[in-house]
């Protein structure tokens, strides 16, 4: 604050002026209003009367001054006047000396109904939405979550004896018998037992509905079973040798046999065989439909991988394959279509090959090949992360989790004492079942929880949080 001027001559002058003001207060005259003394006109009653009620200090000062006696020394009076002046300047500077401008076009209001998320914002380090939170590390349990005995499991590379249904039931074929193990409650049911002339069971495959299951037999017959009533629904004949591979595509069941052929059956109609795919020169041991249902991949003991068009399977014209891929050096049993990238297929070769290869099935080009140093028996893609799980034979009999596309090994899971022939993934995509020649079935929590599930639980928490708050108020 400026030191008040105490020069006697000036204050004397102002006192006289002040006297005028006091006189004028009773009866304001036009002469007073037009007074132009700089910095002085603000201190009149007239001015204060029009100000907003906020300036209590000034009002108080003025009221006090009204009642004050004339015994105030002139210098003190001057000081108080300065004080008043300062107060006025501070509070009114904006109004009196500046112009306030606003841009004519206004910013838009926030979107309607958008959750303001302020509480979320204040309670989190990272900004939701701004940056996708990435799980850098995930614990991958090294031991199986559960181990089941699988006596009499055939140690045959060319069969497919394990499948996990969309209704969370694991089907496993042990010699002539197919067992259903309910992963939800752990109950075991015997679905069927093949006669000695028909058996052993060479393949099992759940229909997408999770209710019906196809069973391929050594006798070349394919049986369709209802898993609820445990009754056979129908029998599909056509092959002339054992049926080691099955693949569903809606109502179409594709079967691959030791007769080198693939048959497509429409299980709804009487004449169930819609087409026959000939291309392999030895037993068909791997068969998988793409997630889109547009392409069928088949692998054979002739080291060939074929890609077939779905149109051929439905229309009935026995057209040749789309691609014939002959880069594997051993039987191609392990096949897995990528869930996040269409036209991407992973295939694994047998003992002489040991490679996992990635294919663009649209162009038929090999994208990548990785030598795993062991027979590749089965492959499963993670549905949550860009990861691939492979199962192997000699010498480690391990499962390997790979990061795709870098193909860095994330984990190696050992436990099986014989080659891990089959893999099946749970319907929630979190765990994988493996079946091996050591007659055990093991369950691994290898893929982790789905991201969406986590988000869902989180948002649930926040909503309950705000609900609680409302209750309190």
């Amino acid at each position: 604050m400026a030191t008040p001027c105490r020069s006697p001559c000036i204050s004397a002058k102002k006192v006289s002026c002040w006297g005028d003001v006091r006189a004028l207060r009773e009866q304001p005259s036009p002469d007073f209003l037009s007074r132009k003394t700089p910095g002085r006109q603000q201190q009149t009653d007239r001015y204060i009367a029009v100000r907003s009620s906020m300036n209590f200090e000034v009002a108080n000062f003025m009221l006090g001054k009204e009642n004050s006696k004339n015994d105030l020394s002139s210098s003190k009076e001057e000081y108080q006047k300065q004080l008043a002046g300062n107060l006025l300047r501070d509070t009114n500077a904006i109004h009196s000396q500046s112009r306030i401008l606003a841009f004519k076009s206004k910013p838009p209001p926030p979107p309607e109904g958008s959750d303001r998320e302020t509480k979320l914002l204040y309670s989190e380090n990272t900004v939701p939405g701004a940056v996708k939170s990435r799980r850098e590390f995930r614990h991958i349990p090294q031991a199986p979550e559960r181990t089941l005995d699988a006596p009499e499991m055939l140690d045959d590379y060319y069969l497919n004896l394990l499948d996990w249904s969309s209704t969370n039931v694991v089907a496993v074929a042990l010699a002539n018998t197919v067992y259903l193990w309910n992963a939800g409650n752990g109950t075991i049911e015997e679905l069927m037992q093949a006669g000695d002339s028909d058996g052993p069971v060479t393949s099992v495959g759940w229909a997408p509905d999770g209710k019906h299951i196809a069973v391929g037999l050594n006798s070349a017959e394919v049986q369709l079973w209802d898993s609820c009533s445990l009754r056979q629904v129908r029998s599909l004949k056509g092959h002339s040798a054992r049926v080691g591979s099955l693949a569903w595509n809606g109502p179409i069941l594709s079967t691959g046999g030791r007769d080198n052929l693939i048959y497509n059956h429409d299980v709804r109609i009487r004449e169930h065989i819609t087409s026959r795919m000939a291309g392999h020169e030895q037993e068909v041991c791997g068969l998988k439909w793409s997630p889109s249902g547009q392409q069928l991949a088949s692998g054979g003991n002739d080291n060939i991988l074929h890609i077939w068009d779905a149109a051929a399977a439905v229309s009935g014209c026995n057209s040749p394959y789309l691609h014939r891929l002959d880069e594997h050096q051993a039987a191609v049993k392990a096949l897995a279509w990528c869930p996040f990238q269409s036209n991407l297929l992973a295939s694994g070769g047998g003992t002489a090959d040991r490679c996992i290869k990635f294919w663009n099935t649209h162009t038929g080009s090999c994208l990548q090949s990785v030598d795993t140093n062991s027979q590749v028996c089965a492959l499963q893609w993670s549905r949550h992360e860009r990861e691939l799980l492979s199962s192997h034979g000699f010498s480690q009999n391990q499962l390997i989790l790979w990061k795709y596309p870098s193909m860095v090994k994330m984990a190696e899971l050992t436990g099986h004492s014989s080659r891990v022939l089959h893999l099946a993934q749970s319907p929630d995509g979190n765990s994988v079942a493996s079946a091996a020649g050591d007659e055990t079935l093991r369950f691994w929590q290898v893929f982790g929880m789905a991201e969406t599930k986590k988000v869902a639980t989180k948002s649930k928490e926040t909503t309950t949080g705000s609900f609680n708050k409302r209750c309190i108020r």
Partner: protein
Amino acid sequence: MLGMAIAQSTRDIITLKGSAALVGEFFCYAVNSILFQRGVYPTDQFDKVKKYGLTMLVSEEERVKSYITTVTSHIGNWLETGKVQRVVLVISSIATKEVLERWNFLIQTDREVTDKGILRQKSDKEIMGEIQAIMRQITSSVTFLPNLEEPCSFELLVHTDKDFEAPNTWEDSDAKLIKKGQEVKLRSFDTKVHKIDSLVAYKLDDTDV
């Protein structure tokens, strides 16, 4: 050695134009940061940008973006005239139109620079440090400011000298003061040409009373 010394000194010279641009840019980032921190717009409308050695959040919503860039670039130009006294970011309730928060940036311009064209010196690093401190304070302000519980809108007001001639895209406004407000002074920064004092005023949460 001499060459280096000259380079050093030219780099640290602050011109009126340079200072005005720097302060204008500061307003742009400060306004974005306040809008994000106060949750005026949904958080997913913001994008992260590295600036002042910090991660600043900048609105990606086209109309918000265009409003802020237009207004702050105007302010940047006007700062060269030395006639801008303060910039105020007003946050008010959409429903009641009541002003809930005012972010004041008081500007003092060095008259010697605007009138006589004298150059000043201050290192970039030092200025950045001061701006960084204000930005950090804006971020931390959420700890004492009351939650904005209702949908809000914002507006920028520019206080200029009486004789300032504004383009016709601008209009006169009232000060939009807060009744019964509380004030917290924040840090300042100084380019040696423009000195910016910041202050936030907010409406007291009457539910606490």
